[in-house]
């Protein structure tokens, strides 16, 4: 009588893995003002009548809570469940090992966003129901542990054997691709801390490149959505299905794209009623119709979510080369490859890319490489606001002005969730003190400049 007849007590491990992949992609891709407002912070988009989120109002909609919950509860918890069930589900030792490795890579990937967004977070005591009020761990310590875990997972991948098969919505069980993904992600994690620990970054990046990173857009980690809810792209839900006109292009971004005749502009946005492209000023209330809107291709229900791509990998390698790491090629060659990959990904041609790169304001400038790479990252990470935000904080380019009538400085981290303040107060307060104050302006350990 006490067993719920309508909900299962047993499910295959792959069900949790699939769901976690989708939840993770949803969280990163979403443009919901309650969850993912990074496109607004980095001034890719701008809100129309209700510019509160563009002005960094995180509290009213509890955006910091929702982000935290989405990753801890909806992604990592399910990945942990998958891990616990895999040994009982899968007989073949190699497949079992591969599945565990992929799940581990996904988990490390998820932790990366938590630790780079909040700073110190519950880690060693997290995801343990016996520890309802977990303590917060030092962010740098967590990060180093994640790197160790990532290395171990890479070591466990056997490219000849199978993985999750079709339950793997990203690579359809292709372990060769997963190995490239893990290494490319290792490059990303290493470069994120390059300002804090250049030597460690160098070792890691060189090892990852030697092991094999993304070599073309075909390697990109994309999750192709379906055209029926609940498995649609969340942007379609937010922009089309909702019937709302909340977002237009931000003037900052449009102006920058126009300044160098960026061939991606028509892939990113629609033309305004005059046939040109225009954006609204960040933080200022604006009208929908006179401005450029998100390209309808991006708002299709099945438009893929993008988790990691070749373009950003090349831009990381450009920076690595610039910093003197031994990654093969030169900073310029990687830079050009990255920009070209981005233009091609968005539907442009190699010729368009070459013409674009030939312009004085675009061509790689070793004297101000942070600007060159920073601006190109900002453009290449269009529609991936969260990553654009992390790179903007690290590279400090483009130099964005805070939004009009902003409630605070431009956020360089998220404050801890209200739920943590209410429920886990003692640990929250200790963490807030340890990182130098629970404020949006508190810089995290890797954000040196």
């Amino acid at each position, binding site marked *: 009588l006490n067993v719920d007849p309508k909900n299962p007590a047993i*499910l295959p491990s792959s069900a949790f893995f699939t769901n976690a992949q989708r939840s993770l992609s949803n969280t990163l891709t979403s443009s919901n003002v309650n969850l993912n407002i990074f496109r607004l912070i980095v001034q890719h988009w701008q809100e129309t009548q209700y510019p509160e989120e563009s002005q960094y109002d995180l509290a009213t909609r509890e955006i910091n809570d929702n982000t935290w919950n989405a990753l801890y509860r909806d992604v990592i918890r399910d990945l942990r469940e998958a891990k616990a069930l895999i040994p009982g589900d899968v007989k073949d030792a190699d497949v079992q090992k591969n599945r565990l490795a992929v799940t581990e890579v996904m988990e490390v990937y998820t932790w990366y966003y938590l630790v780079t967004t909040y700073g110190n977070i519950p880690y060693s005591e997290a995801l343990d129901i016996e520890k309802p009020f977990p303590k917060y761990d030092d962010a740098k310590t967590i990060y180093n542990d994640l790197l160790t875990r990532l290395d171990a997972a890479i070591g466990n991948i056997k490219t000849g054997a199978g993985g999750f098969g079709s339950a793997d919505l990203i690579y359809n069980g292709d372990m060769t691709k997963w190995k490239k993904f893990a290494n490319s992600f290792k490059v990303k994690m290493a470069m994120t801390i390059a300002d804090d620990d250049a030597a460690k970054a160098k070792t890691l990046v060189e090892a990852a490149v030697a092991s094999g990173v993304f070599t073309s857009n075909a390697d990109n980690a994309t999750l192709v959505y379906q055209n029926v809810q609940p498995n649609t792209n969340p942007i379609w839900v937010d922009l089309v299905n909702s019937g709302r006109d909340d977002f237009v292009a931000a003037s900052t971004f449009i102006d920058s794209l126009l300044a160098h005749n960026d061939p991606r502009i028509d892939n990113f946005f629609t033309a305004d009623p005059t046939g040109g492209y225009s954006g609204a000023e960040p933080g200022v209330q604006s009208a929908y119709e006179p401005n450029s809107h998100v390209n309808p291709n991006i708002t299709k229900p099945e438009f893929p979510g993008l988790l990691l791509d070749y373009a950003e990998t090349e831009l990381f390698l450009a920076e690595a080369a610039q910093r003197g790491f031994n990654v093969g090629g030169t900073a310029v060659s990687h830079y050009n490859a990255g920009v070209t990959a981005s233009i091609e990904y968005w539907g442009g041609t190699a010729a368009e890319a070459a013409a674009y790169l030939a312009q004085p304001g675009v061509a790689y400038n070793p004297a101000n490489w942070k600007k060159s790479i920073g601006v190109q990252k900002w453009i290449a990470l269009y529609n991936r606001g969260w990553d654009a935000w992390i790179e903007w904080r690290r590279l400090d380019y483009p130099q964005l002005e805070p939004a009009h009538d902003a409630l605070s400085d431009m956020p360089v981290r998220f404050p801890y969730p209200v739920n943590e303040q209410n429920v886990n107060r003692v640990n929250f307060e200790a963490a807030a003190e340890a990182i130098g104050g629970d404020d949006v302006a508190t810089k995290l350990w890797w954000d040196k400049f």
Partner: protein
Amino acid sequence: VSGRVTDAQGKAVPFASVTVKGTSVGVAADENGNFTIEAAPNSTLVFSAAGYQAAEVNIKNQSTVSASLSAQSSLNEVVVTALGIRRTRNQTPYAAQQVTGEEVSKTRNANFVQNLSGKVAGLDIRQTNTMGGSTNVIIRGTKSITGNNQALFVVDGVPYSNSNTNTANQRTGRGGYDYGNAAADINPDDIESVTVLKGAAASALYGSQGSNGVILITTKKNARGLGITVNSGVTVGKVDKSTFATYQKQYGAGYGKFYGPDEDKWFNEADVNGDGVVDLVAPFHEDASYGAKFDPNLMVYQWDAFDPTSPYFGKARPWVAAANDPTTFFQTPVSSNQSVFIDGGSDRGSFKLGYTRNDDKGILPNSKISKNLLNFGGTYNITPKLTAGATINFTNINGLGRYGTGYDDKNLMTNFRQWWEVNVDVQEQKDAYFRNRDNTTWNWKSANRLIANFWDNPYFSRYENYESDSRNRYFGVANLNFKPVEWLNIMGRASHDGYNELQEERQAVGSVTTSSYSRFNNAFSETNFDLIANMDKNITTDINFKALLGGTLNKRHNESIRAVTNGGLIVPRVYALSNSLNTPNAPVEFDGRREVHSLYAGATFTWREMITLDGTIRRDQSSTLPKDNNTYYYPSVSAGFTFSKLLPSATWLSYGKLRANYARVGNDAPVYSVYDSYVGIAPFGGNPQGSVAGTKNNPNLMPELTGSFEAGVEMAFLKNRIGFDMSYYRSKTDDLITPVILSTATGYNSKFLNAGSIENKGIEVSVNGTPVKTSDFSWNINVNWSKNRNKVLELFEGAENLVLADFQAGVTLNASLGQPYGTIRGSNYVYKNGEKVVSQTSGRYVLSPTSNEVIGNANPDWVGGINNSFRYKNLSLSFLVDTKQGGDIFSLDMYYGMGTGLYPETVALNDLGNPSRNTIAEGGGIILPGVDADGKPNAKRRSNSEGTLGYRQPTAGFVYDASYIKLREAIISYSLPKSLVSKLNPFKGIDLSLIGRNLWIIDKHIPYADPEETISSGNLQGYQSGAYPTTRTFTFNAKFRF
């Protein structure tokens, strides 16, 4: 001596107590009013009964005596207590306040629960203003943190489900319909009396279901002879304007000066009429009134310029405030209530048959509820010792167009109170809808995109996006009473309460949200089998002994299925799952069963009707708890001391009693909170998806226990002309079964635990007085007052706060350690020396760094009611004033409405005497009262623009005192004189009455709203969003007795 006790109309008064004056000899009459008592010739018999004034009759030498009692509404003599046990007042050692059936049915309100407001001390009734909406019924405060705190309804000894099926989204103000509570299925005309058992000692015999107090309903018993009563009433209503928005009439649509091609104008621009000159087009795609100042000389193309059927098609109109604002949207509600009640009986048995038909039309277009209530009951005396009885009640409720609630496009109050353009004429929207029968909205996206932006045409919304629902309910009881000897009664009873309901919700093609159809089928059933033995014997002349032994088997089953279309509808206006554009996802099913097995026993000793000692014990075994912990016991002990018996010489003292009791009541766990299960999610391309549930269940749960102590005194003076009943109580609930909110870094939202304790303590006073009493004129006063103090004493280890609900605007309702349950938290002002700090860069108030500051508390300080009734010959007048003092409410309506410029406050003149909406350069803007960071008076002037006076301020600014004083009801009734009626064969009596409800809010503090208005019944209170106005109602009723 034998005889019969009747009322003034000659109908039997059941269960009257009959005593021989000056002795301790006493008996109770049976349910037909018949009694037999041993008495010496020439002695005097004293008759008393619930709701009647005591009468004395000298029997002289007669062997039959009849007594006629006249009705009285003061202190009652016989009280119906737990399990239908009748007790004289002397033998009732706990608080049990009784209200007569007449009292709850006379207003002809279809939901009798609302009629209890203000009539019982310690009972907190909170009602919503939606048509057929739910009513929150709390006795002596909140005892469980997240569990059910609603009082148990019991009809003739059998639990009667009062659940509501409102969704979690509805209850947290995110939209959805309020489908009301199931107790509204009870026919008010069938109610003989309502007893409110407040403390644990009184309700201990009901076990866990009764742990929140019990509303005990005794239905009408059958009298001798034949009685027919017909009621016919009609009610009309009118919206109380003090509870609805008042609009400013100076500025129209828009958010500011950023329209037109260069985003710097008040209006959009387009060459609408093709004359080559650019025209002004209103920013009708906005839903705010921070736009251009009205100017009748300014010609502007508005929404109707783009409606080809409109007389203003292609025409510009003067820029002025609407002639018909949303107050004209409300229509006059009309209800009709017709009922017939027939009862009859003889020596061998009795029957009753009642039918009530109720049709309510709401204040919103296209809204109505119809109710059919059918009651049948009969008893048959098989032998003098064996009686069989059965009742069956059938209820059928059909709702259409119930009001949307919360923050939702289907709640037009959200539209009218939070997001509106004051230049929009509601009646023109009405005409547009009826001309086109489509969504011709005031809120087009733009002149080129004639589709709804945020809001539908309000009439389209009412007529096309409507819900409909139906509920059929059967409540049947069959019992067999065996009375082998005079002092023993054995009862076997089987009862079944079951309902099936269907709720269908529609979103039409062309609405602002994706078209859809959803259906929710819900079936509930509760079955009880009882076997109860009762004994009542005078062991000696001085000692009366009552005992009870019984067992109950209780089974509850709730099964539901909710299905919804996916991605829209294919064919407009076809509301079927098969009309879904994409394949619908699997419906959500629920199947919950629970079973409780109970044994209970009780004993009561009464010495000389002066001292009563009472003890009960109950053992419950519940299926919802883990096997090892599923049995729990709860005892109660009570004592009563009728000290007035010691003071027979004190003639001024009519009655005096002290009482004290202690009880412990247990409660089981919600269904399925012991073992974990996963959540299955629609597959992704054939790959199954699953997730770990957000709440971790607990195989080690134990029952939660409430211990409560109560002491009281009852006194009456001057021949019962004035009396009072006062109680003090304290209850503490421990080991609360709660899904404790955890750090979500655990991967869970919450875990079921036995965590925390809550204390409630309070005082209840009810006073009755009859200041004037002559044969022609009387004046009665009845006062009820209660104060409850609630405190969260303990939460789960280390936890200091538990979030109960997370509302829009970042406002939460909480149980915080050391605070009363229902703490409202949100963002606060930052204070410097007691003054609000204003930012010297933005000119706005500085917000507290966190959103968990305590900004209010939903609990009232005290509640009370005063009822006055006057009678002059056949004319009577009564009126009830009830009040709730203290308690806070957060208004999302004001938070947004002030921010979007709807209210007159947003156009006030500033400190310079200029319109504050002028630009600062023009001498406008406002200086918010407060100080700068150093404590110097704020001198920073900022523009009065969107959000400034509303949602850009701390949420603390929109927390209001929820106190009110209301003239709840007033009734004038006239009984046609007997002399006249007797000529009008076949009538025995004709009463005419005029009833007013919710007539006047004498005092309140929340602007433009009813402080009592809430989103739903349940634990989540203290929050308003899209509040409905109060409806004043006036009823004319004629009652005929044959």
